[in-house]
């Protein structure tokens, strides 16, 4: 990517790519902010089907929080140079991430079974759209984890500045999709 990404170029405390990711995160937050505001506005207009959110979504919240914890310790072991633990924890995070997406799909199936189908009322449509779009962002994170895994298992283990910065981007984004889900599930809880 040219001259800019070489570490000695930047005189700044925060790497430009990392900062750019923060700005990107801000824009994703605006998108989900728009969805949840639309939810509130639409709900206050009445004609709103009430139903209980299937338990699987709450169980899944634990899964994604756990994946953040494992990734955090994976990053710490990377910095400490503990190769084995790093690889194991990174792989665990990846598996937990995939499980989250699969379990979300199970959650949508459970919603369907209780009669809260995609088109029956905006109250359920919103759940599918918002959690679906979140799952799409998690899949993006899973793809990033896959790249990190490939780096970890194919390249020789070297905790260089450049490699650490790349890993930090993955960590930053993954914690974000985690926090985003916690916000969304709390939002749904408060609203229903």
């Amino acid at each position, binding site marked *: 990517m*040219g001259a800019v990404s070489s570490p000695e170029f930047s005189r700044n405390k925060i790497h430009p790519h990392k900062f750019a990711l923060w700005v990107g995160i801000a824009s994703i937050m605006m*998108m989900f902010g*728009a969805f949840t505001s639309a939810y509130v506005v639409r709900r206050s207009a009445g004609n709103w089907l009430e139903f209980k959110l299937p338990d699987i979504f709450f169980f899944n919240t634990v899964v994604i929080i756990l994946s953040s914890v494992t990734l955090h310790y994976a990053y710490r072991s990377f910095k400490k140079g503990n190769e084995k633990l790093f690889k194991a924890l990174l792989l665990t995070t990846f598996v937990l991430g995939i499980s989250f997406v699969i379990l979300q799909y199970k959650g949508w199936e459970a919603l369907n079974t209780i009669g809260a189908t995609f088109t029956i009322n*905006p109250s359920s449509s919103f759940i599918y759209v918002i959690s679906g779009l979140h799952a799409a962002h998690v899949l993006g994170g899973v793809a990033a984890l896959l790249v990190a895994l490939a780096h970890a298992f194919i390249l020789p283990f070297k905790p260089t500045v450049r490699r650490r910065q790349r890993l930090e981007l993955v960590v930053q984004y993954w914690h974000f999709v985690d926090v985003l889900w916690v916000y969304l599930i709390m939002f749904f809880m408060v609203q229903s």
Partner: protein
Amino acid sequence: MAQVVTAAETLEDKLTQELGYDDHFHEHHHGDKYQSNFLTTYIFSTDHKIIGRQFLITGIFWAFVGAAMSIVFRLQLGFPEADLAWLKPLLGKWIQVNDAGIGKLDPEFYYSLVTMHGTILVFFVLTAGLSGTFSNILIPLQVGARDMASPLLNAFSYWFFFLAGVVMLLSLFLSTGPFSGGWTAYPPLSALGQASDGSKAGMTMWIVSMSLFVVSALLGGINYITTVLNLRTKGMNMWRMPLTIWAFFITAILGVLSFPVLFSGLLLLIFDRSMGTSFYLSEIVVGGQILDRIGGSPILYQHLFWFLGHPEVYIIILPAMGIVSEVLSVHSRKPIFGYRAMVYSILAIAFLSFIVWAHHMFMSGVNPFISNFFVVFTLIIAVPSAIKVFNWISTVYGSNFRFNSASLFALGFVSMFISGGLTGIFLGNSAIDIQLHDTYFVVAHFHIVMGIAAFFGMFAGIYHWFPKMFGRFMNETLGKIHFWGTLVGAYAIFWPMHYTGMAGVPRRYYSIENFDSFRHFVDLNQFITIAAIVVFFLQVLFIINFFYSVFSGRKLTTKNPWGANTLEWTTPIQPGHGNWPDKIPAVQRWPYDYGKDGEEYMPQYVPLRDGEHDHGH
């Protein structure tokens, strides 16, 4: 004179060598692997200067298409009896020829033209073409960076815009026609294919195109913000940034925060169109058929749309304001008046732009008490806007003004912004909106204040930075004809619309002949159409001047033809990849030291003298 210029350049080289910021650039690039052949240099380039020019030329293409569309529908409005059969080779079945051989514009296609004109001009020309072009070219050059924070994402930003354009262009050739429900795409019209031909495949392609455009705007915006905050050269603190950079920076923040909301709105619209949900559709009957949609709210879409839509008009106008501030200061040979007030007013406008969206919805059934809130904040925008206008006038006042195409267009911008801004105060009042909403008064207002004004800012920028972009000057005589013709012509088009609008002539109507109360406007409507045609051909003159000058304009012989202070004029006449061949100049002062201590101008790399006060602190 020539000697003075040489002396200044040696001083510049000396200062850059002594004080400049050394990032070991020359040690990294032996030969330029990024610009090794035609394809990587001019097409799939990651160099911000090329990407900026790509945005500009694509924008010019779309401006031509969008303006030509307006001429076609203006012909119908101004000369409803005229024979348009001669357009048949171009428009095919959209021209209906009756038994007498008289060709008429298809009414359905008239709506498509109006919709496409709005979409193209607002998004493709005045967003991508204006802020895409100048943010790309000027941000790295003026803050002293080698390139954008992520040149690759920057290239993607252009190519997503290009793809968005391809999809929109293809939709023009659909048998059911392009989308025809207005550039705001309000449901239910936009959500139901049964509602009109344009809402079928045309609308699907419109959504796809706009989604690609949102991606482009976000990738660009993220890059602009990061570059401004992270890659400024040594000494370039925020208060030493030119006002262009401040404007592009705040514009990018507006885009990054508001475009995702448009995307949310469009995504829900997609589900309503294709998956049978009812976010925006309540109990509805179309063509005698009762649909099974229940419980949606079309107003919800309007909230989401205008949460982008209002910041969007500032995304259009702020870059023009930044360009005008810089161009007026350089050609007045005076410091910009009230630099900090200019920055604070940009910030104030940007903040207010997020809390006034419902003033586009006064008539769509929102609570009148909520309207009051939006009226108050809308009217407060007049304060920072007026501060900017006073500062531009004070900058020019009493100056030894250089009249050239760039500075004239900058002055024209101020004139247009005042004229259009005043009618904004009318329209910001929800009570007056009862009469004025959806009339030609609204059309006149926004065309003057963000259409023509933004175009004037863009023209000022093109004439001013053309030497930096292409190493040549544009033709001044043609430029001045372009300016005076467009200034008079633009007022001739839009001024009369205020009167027709106050009388209640509705916008978007195919024909107003059948209303007795509007019959006396027939001549005025013809006059507007003739003025529009004249102005259109003046823009063709500009395009000819532009492309002629790219290849055969007068060559640039010095680095700094306008005697400007900003850093882009310290790069070589044809800057290569990385912008500066060696060290990046370090910044010692703010960019507006014109006519100070007997010096005509003091570029930003000149150190402060003993006891000299720096405005940048």
